[in-house]
């Protein structure tokens, strides 16, 4: 193998090419489509009835809780990936340590389950 430029370079290239595609598609329909705006067309479509109020309202706290819990458990998964890729190297020591780590988080999971943070109604 010759010295490769950087393993991240293809990603940059893919991003640039992808931007050209999505930007080109957006621009094509912007340039080629007709332009006949009217009030009814530019209005928000909520089943065709006149719009009441705005969409900038307060949301259910459930979505926020879900996002926070996701971050918690996703970081757990990230740590587990580190251990999994070093599995052969760490041996039984790693298995036990991760078992302790995961069971601590499992306690937290049981707690949020009992408190009803995951209950949707």
């Amino acid at each position: 193998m010759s010295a490769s430029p950087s393993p991240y370079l293809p990603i940059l290239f893919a991003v640039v090419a992808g931007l050209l595609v999505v930007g080109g598609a957006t621009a094509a329909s912007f340039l080629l489509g007709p332009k006949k705006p009217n009030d009814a067309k530019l209005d928000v479509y909520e089943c065709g009835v006149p719009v009441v109020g705005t969409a900038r309202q307060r949301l259910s706290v459930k979505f926020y809780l879900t996002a926070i819990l996701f971050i918690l458990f996703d970081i757990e998964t990230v740590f587990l990936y580190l251990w999994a890729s070093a599995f052969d190297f760490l041996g039984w020591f790693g298995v036990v340590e991760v078992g302790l780590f995961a069971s601590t988080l499992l306690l937290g999971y049981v707690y949020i389950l009992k408190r009803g943070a995951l209950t949707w109604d």
Partner: protein
Amino acid sequence: MLNPMLFDLIAMVLKVAVALLIALQVAPIMVWVERRQAAMIQRRVGPNRVGLFGFRMFGLGQPLADTIKLIFKEDFVPKQANKVFYVMAPMITGLAGLVAIVGLPLGSYVEVFGTRVNLQPVELNAGFLYLFAVSALGVYGAALAGWSSNNKYALLGGLRASAQMVSYEIAMGMSLLPIVIIFGTLNMQDIIAAQSGHLLFGFLPAWGVFYAPVSMCIFVVCMFAETNRLPFDLAEGEAELVAGFLTEYGSMRWSLFFLGEYAMMTTLSGLAVCLFFGGYEIPWLPQTRILELLTGAGLGRELALWVMFPLGLGVLLGKIAVFMFLFVQARFTLPRFRYDQLMDLGWKIMFPFALANLVVSAVWAAIAKFGLP
């Protein structure tokens, strides 16, 4: 012989271009497949009229006609929308889909001027974690589209979509840990190679699915939820939310969401194929064996590798097509979940199952690899 730096650059550009072309072709073809397959399930005819140059070709010209129609549709921004995010959202989803697919290995390798070229456009040592990282970016598109439209239905759809995607992401990430433990690597090429060398019990191909069947089931279910496909498409549940976060979108912006969705389906199917079903390898006939056969038949080594590249790509795409068939079949067979059922499934069933699967696999693998403690 070219300058090695230039050679690498050209190889990189070609590999990425092939991957992106595949991703871009999937959306139009799948639109047609989806409509025809739906028609078959519902005993209708489906789109069979539009052809090219006077030939009907089972309506294969339909996606082309659809694209032209979409380009010439009026492209407007609703007056209460947040213009910047409204324009950005479909581009993010489309871009995430296109950029994710370059992480898939398209074949093992070819040799040009005696230099070995790995046929995986992006070869990071983080392996398939790259696919996870990029495919998760699609959530931003859904959330931003829902919020920026300034439409209550769109907002709810976007929120639901993002909550659903993040919920299933945990189980998805955990379901693949046993694969990493069993094969001892994150590199997709190595995982595919490990699946092709030998047979299990003398007759089964050594696919990941036979080592970790529970992982495969969890991953496939999460794959449906990640891509917002039925039975998990609550984000755009038309019976309750008009069209969810797509409500205010039209013309090419709308189709960019679908470009992203289909590209993501392809990428995740490709990931499942590579980790659980041997990737580009033909079962019972590993590529090393094909290489021996071809060189034995008098083909040069370089030429033989070039013959194997399209062969392997065809096998990979064929396996992905099976998954795509499953996606469409599920869409027109299963009813939609209710939102609380969906979240319960993600958090209360998939997550504990994935964790239990991980624990059992880890202990099993530890006993197999290091002996009893």
